[in-house]
């Protein structure tokens, strides 16, 4: 079996990174283990829960079923990339705090990125559009009401 390692480059949170990975390396694990970005969460590992969501070229995808080699050259945003370098939180993060939209916090990185994605594309989402966009991104505390409220507060 040829499990040739390969050095690949991509951008994470506006910073160019270079990692040497095997073909079976998953983006999720490269982010968490090689790059120390543990904000992205592992949960189901089969693309069902969406807690491993990151933005690749501005679009949310599931990092637990994405090969690292497949994102060579891509522009990736993880939850760590949302706050300003001085620690000022993104408005979406502020809204989640203000509305108590975080219980155990495990779905929060994926949920915040989905909210960010929705608001980037549609600054005035209705409640049904919000629910549609985050459906499939699972919160096992079932704290959806406050999550929807937080996102709604940013709908201009």
């Amino acid at each position: 079996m040829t499990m040739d390692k390969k050095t690949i480059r991509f951008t994470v949170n506006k910073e160019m990174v270079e990692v040497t990975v095997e073909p079976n390396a998953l983006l999720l694990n490269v982010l968490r283990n090689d790059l120390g970005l543990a904000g992205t969460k592992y949960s189901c590992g089969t693309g069902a829960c969406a807690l491993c969501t990151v933005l690749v070229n501005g679009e949310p995808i599931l990092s637990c079923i994405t090969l690292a080699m497949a994102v060579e050259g891509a522009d990736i945003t993880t939850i760590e990339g949302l706050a300003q370098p001085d620690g000022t939180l993104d408005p979406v993060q502020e809204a989640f705090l203000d509305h108590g939209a975080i219980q155990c916090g495990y779905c929060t990185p994926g949920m915040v990125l989905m909210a960010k994605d929705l608001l980037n594309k549609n600054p005035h989402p209705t409640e049904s559009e919000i629910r549609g966009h985050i459906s499939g991104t699972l919160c096992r505390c079932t704290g959806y009401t406050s999550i929807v409220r937080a996102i709604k507060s940013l709908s201009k």
Partner: protein
Amino acid sequence: MINTHILKAEFEYLAPRSLAEALDLLDKFGADSKIIAGGTDLLVLMKKEIATPAHLINISRIPGLSLIREDEGWLRIGAAARWSDIVRYCASRRQYAALAEAASSIGKVQVRNMATIGGNLCTASPAADSAPALLALGSQVKLVGAGRERTLFLEDFFEGVRKTALGPKEIMTEVLIPPVPKDTGSAFAKITRVGVDISKISCAVSVSRQGFRCISCRIAMGAVAPTPLRIKGAEETAAGKEVSAALLEDIGRKVAGEIKPITDIRSTAEYRRAVAGVLAGDVFGKAWRRAEEQ
């Protein structure tokens, strides 16, 4: 217990830059290799050690393979086109309403940003949401490889549960939708437990009308047989008839009689048979009303 945290499988990763290069790789490795695009199905099967390819050939960056374009009235969708792109393309084109409805109901936002039309068809799940819509629109698929190029009607492409006519050295390159005649409407609907779940049953209809009469129609169902399929008996029942509540009931009865549903974790054969006719009647009615609006 399988550790889904990692992908344990060992394989060679290949990223060809052209279709010719991909076909060469496929020719070399054949059945030991697998084509990958979005990976939403294949990587899960590999984690579960159900699929064990020695070589993965990623076709998602081959230029042109994800194009969506119109050509002399035909809609040509590259096999590596992602569902989110198809949703965007079809949103303002009412002649493809059934495809727009099916595409936007596939998985969730993240999955639609990854999964492709070719992947959905080549995976050949009986419950593939795109299949009934594409069958109802009379779609064909283009297969290239092993020194030839062929175009099949989608109904001839599906051979069984996860079985297709695709040879080990072939790649699906395009899905072709023929020109939609005037006064034709289409619709798709499915029944699921929760929004992002796999369908218990799905249905798509395309119908051409003249006044109160149905000139011709295609009725396709998913998750009611080993493959998504057209219900030819029901189509014949409707052809040339005046559309009425009684006709919709007749169509429903034909549909219920022709399908071969099974009982599985998502539903029972009895339930599927009971709702199939109602669903087909409803979807036919919706397509019918759209035909008038066209």
